[in-house]
C-alpha cells in the first residue's frame, strides 16, 4: 500500500483484511466494487466507487508497476482518492470528474508529485505543505474510513484527517 514497495500477495492480503473489516454506512452503496486488473504478477491497477444518498461519491484508483530491477516487487505509480459531489456521469454511468468540477477532498498525483485538493480544485497543496498528514502514507482504506467518519460526525475533513494547509 501507499508508496512502499510491495509484492502482490502482501498487497492483496492487506486489501482483503481491510476490505472485509469495512462496514458501509447505511446511506452508501458500492457503485463499482473494488476491481483489480492484473496483467503480470508485478503490474496491476484497481478502481473502486462508493456513492452516497446525498449525491456525493468516493472514487479510488491506484496503479502499481514493477519496481525496476527488483525481483517480484512493485510500487504504487499512480493514485487518486476523490470525495465530492456527483456533477456528471461517464459512459459507464459511474460518477465522472473534470478539473473544473467541485471537490471536497482529493489526493492525486496526476501532475507528478502527490498533492491535495481541499474544497476546491486550486490550489494544489503539495505533500510538504500539508501539515499533520503524509499524503503518501494514507492508503485507500484510511481515506474511505476518514470520509465515513466525516459524514457520521459532521466534523470538517481537515479535522477528521488531522491536517492543516
Amino acid at each position, binding site marked *: 500500500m501507499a508508496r512502499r514497495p510491495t509484492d502482490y500477495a502482501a498487497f492483496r492480503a492487506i*486489501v*482483503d483484511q481491510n*476490505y472485509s473489516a*469495512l*462496514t*458501509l*454506512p*447505511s*446511506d*452508501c*452503496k*458500492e*457503485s*463499482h*466494487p*473494488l*476491481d*483489480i*486488473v*492484473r*496483467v*503480470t504478477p*508485478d*503490474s496491476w*491497477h484497481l*478502481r473502486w*466507487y462508493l*456513492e452516497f*444518498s446525498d449525491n456525493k461519491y468516493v*472514487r479510488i*484508483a491506484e*496503479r502499481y*508497476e*514493477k519496481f525496476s530491477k527488483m525481483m517480484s516487487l512493485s510500487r504504487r*505509480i*499512480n493514485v*487518486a482518492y*476523490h470525495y465530492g459531489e456527483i456533477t*456528471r*456521469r*461517464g459512459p459507464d*454511468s*459511474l460518477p*465522472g*470528474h*473534470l*478539473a473544473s468540477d467541485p471537490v471536497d477532498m482529493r489526493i*492525486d498525483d*496526476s501532475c507528478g508529485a502527490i498533492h491535495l485538493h481541499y474544497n476546491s480544485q486550486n490550489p494544489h497543496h503539495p505533500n510538504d505543505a500539508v501539515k499533520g498528514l503524509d499524503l503518501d502514507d494514507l492508503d485507500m482504506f484510511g481515506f474511505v474510513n476518514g470520509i465515513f467518519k466525516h459524514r457520521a460526525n459532521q466534523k470538517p475533513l481537515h479535522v477528521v484527517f488531522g491536517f492543516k494547509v
Partner: protein
Amino acid sequence: MTKSALDIGNERTYDGTLRILEAQMSPIREQFLTLLEVEELIHKFEEKYQVSTTEFLTSTELRAKMLDDEVFQWEAFNAHRDELERAAEEVRSDYLKHLKTSQDDSRGANNNLALAA
C-alpha cells in the same frame, strides 16, 4: 429518471425517496488481461478520442477535457502494455539463452561420442 447505482438493490418509496435496504459490499473482483485484450482496450480509447496513445500522453489540452477515470485507465493500459511486452521479451530471451545452452551441451555430448568412437 435515470436509475442510479444507489437504486440497485434498494427501493423507491411512493414519494420517490430512496429507502436503503442494506449496504452490501461485493466481493473484490480480480481479472487477468492478456496483451491482446489490453491492446484492444487501448484501441477503444484511440477510436473514441480519434488520437493515438502518444498524442494522448503528450496533449495536456486533451487530457484536461477527459474524465479523470478515463485518463487513469488509458494511462494504466498503456503502462500495462509496456510491461507485458517487457515480460514477453524477457521470456523470449531466457528461452533463446536456454536453447543456446542446450545446443552447446548436445554439441559437446556429440563431440564426446565422436571421440569415444
